[in-house]
């Protein structure tokens, strides 16, 4: 068998992906209890950017500009960010199962948020987001320290991440079980499972800024990531400073994950599954893979979040629950297909 490797034009694919993303955001905003059309979305956006005015009522203008638009944009940013984190970590750790949560970052973030919400740590001076952020960094620091002490190889990083994940999950449960009342437990749980409800423009701008920086750094390392295909030693003999690359990229992906988790909670499976889907589309060269994975993740999470907030309307399903429900079968399918092609 001489299987050929053929790849589509990545420029075209990115342009199509970007167009699809803009259309998805516009359409997703129209979906919901309040009846809003795509044209209304454009006019609201245009009026807020100072290009004319909208004839929509202030309430409907508010629904678009204050509720649905930031929420949908944050979904796109989170999807893109998680997919990029997953793609980078899978290549760096040479582990197809690696994703932002393997580092234990999300568990740390959860613990940080729970400590603030339930125990009232920080005396009101520390917001939930800041608590999550600190927890994420703490957990990541622990993983780096642990993996360094254990020898610093990639499997040690993954194992340290699993250990940190378990530790922080246990801490979170402990705090919730011992100190929280039923109402708080419900709120915390919802947040831990991932939710894009109630986000504002600040979340969008912070996450977008971190995403742009992280994506730029990762793209600058695209060729270096390619060189990891045959392992760290092979990368080193191709001129890569393995230790520096790992430190830079693990820090960047951990920071991005921390930012996303502190705004939207622990949304699973996007970082795991979407990079595999993007690889199936454009191959594993990172200069092509990273932008495509980002766009695919963004479109994916926009629609999953739309589903999460409408399927049991007026109840809202945590978006993390939906990504897992969709992600698990897709994940099994991906594994099954890679098994057959070997």
């Amino acid at each position: 068998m001489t299987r050929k490797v053929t790849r589509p034009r990545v420029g075209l694919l990115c342009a199509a992906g970007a167009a699809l993303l803009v259309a998805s955001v516009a359409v997703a905003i129209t979906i919901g209890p309040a009846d809003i059309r795509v044209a209304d979305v454009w006019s609201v956006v245009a009026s807020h950017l100072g290009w004319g005015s909208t004839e929509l009522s202030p309430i409907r203008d508010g629904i678009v500009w204050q509720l649905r638009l930031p929420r949908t944009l944050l979904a796109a940013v989170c999807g893109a960010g998680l997919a990029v984190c997953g793609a980078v970590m899978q290549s760096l750790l040479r582990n197809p199962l690696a994703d932002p949560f393997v580092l234990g970052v999300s568990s740390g973030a959860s613990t940080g948020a729970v400590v603030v919400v339930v125990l009232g740590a920080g005396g009101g001076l520390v917001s939930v987001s800041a608590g999550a952020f600190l927890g994420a960094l703490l957990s990541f620091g622990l993983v780096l320290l642990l993996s360094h002490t254990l020898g610093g190889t990639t499997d040690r990083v993954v194992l340290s991440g699993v250990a940190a994940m378990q530790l922080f999950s246990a801490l979170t449960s402990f705090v919730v079980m011992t100190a929280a009342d039923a109402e708080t437990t419900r709120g915390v749980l919802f947040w831990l499972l991932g939710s894009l409800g109630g986000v504002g423009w600040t979340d969008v701008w912070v996450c977008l800024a971190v995403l742009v920086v992280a994506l730029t750094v990762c793209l600058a390392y695209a060729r270096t990531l390619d060189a990891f295909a045959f392992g760290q030693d092979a990368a080193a003999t191709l001129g890569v400073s393995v230790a520096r690359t790992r430190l830079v990229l693990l820090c960047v992906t951990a920071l991005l994950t921390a930012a996303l988790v502190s705004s939207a909670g622990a949304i699973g499976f996007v970082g795991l599954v979407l990079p595999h889907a993007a690889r199936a589309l454009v191959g594993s060269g990172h200069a092509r893979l990273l932008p495509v994975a980002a766009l695919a993740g963004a479109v994916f999470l926009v629609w999953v979040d739309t589903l999460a907030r409408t399927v049991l309307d007026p109840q809202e399903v945590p978006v993390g629950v939906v990504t897992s429900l969709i992600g698990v079968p897709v994940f099994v399918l991906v594994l099954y297909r890679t098994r057959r092609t070997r």
Partner: protein
Amino acid sequence: MTAERVETTETTEGAGLRAGRVTRTADGRVILDGVSISPAPGTTVGLLGPNGSGKSTLLRLLSGVLAPASGVVTLDGSPLAELGRRDIARRIAVVEQQADTQVELSVLDVVRLGRTPHRRAWTPPSAADEEAVRDALARTGLADRANQSWHTLSGGERQRVQIARALAQEPRELLLDEPTNHLDIQHQLDLLNLVTSLPVTSVVALHDLNLAAMYCDRLVVLREGRVVARGTPADVLTEELIAEVYGVRTAVTRDGSDGRPHVRFLGTVSRPVPRQSAPTCPE
């Protein structure tokens, strides 16, 4: 046994890649103990020795992936430790025993990896990059397989692709760690033919004494981390040395037109008091 022939001074001055009295320990055990080698430019040097004698470690020190505990590896007189990884990778290419990846790659993708040390971020491949890749594919006879998937290649083809990748680095030194392991005999001969025909200095760890005799200009024999013999295959491959180093009885003949020795294995040497378990036959 033959006395060690020390034909070079142990200074680290001069051209090319040299190891000067390098030592390496792991978990308190000495892996390499004061080993020096200085391959003459353009030649193929074979590293011989039983498993655990330090061949792979010496190659890893020569490629700069490991640092010596004492001693120094130099490239044109400069210690590797003072050179950047990129600069080293533009001079020294490595072919490992068995390269594997889970990443879906074409032959062309793998060969292009060889250009990594020559390229900058954010820039497309230059004409020189493409030229080097085309050249490497042509030299290894892979030009018509560029788009084939790596995972569909046989072991011999994969090693060939790795050599093409190494050539795309445009190295002057090529280090190979038992590159013929897992290959059938035709591919073993093909591969070593290819390596010895390249305009580079090669250091190749080998298990097969007859392949070493056929293809190497010089041999360096290691045992327990020390050089026990070095010189031309004809000088080094004697029945006494093979018995001493590998613990096997052989009949060595030199009846070819080129005077290269041929080793025929007769059995293991039964030692009066075995130091460890019974010595094993190579391969």
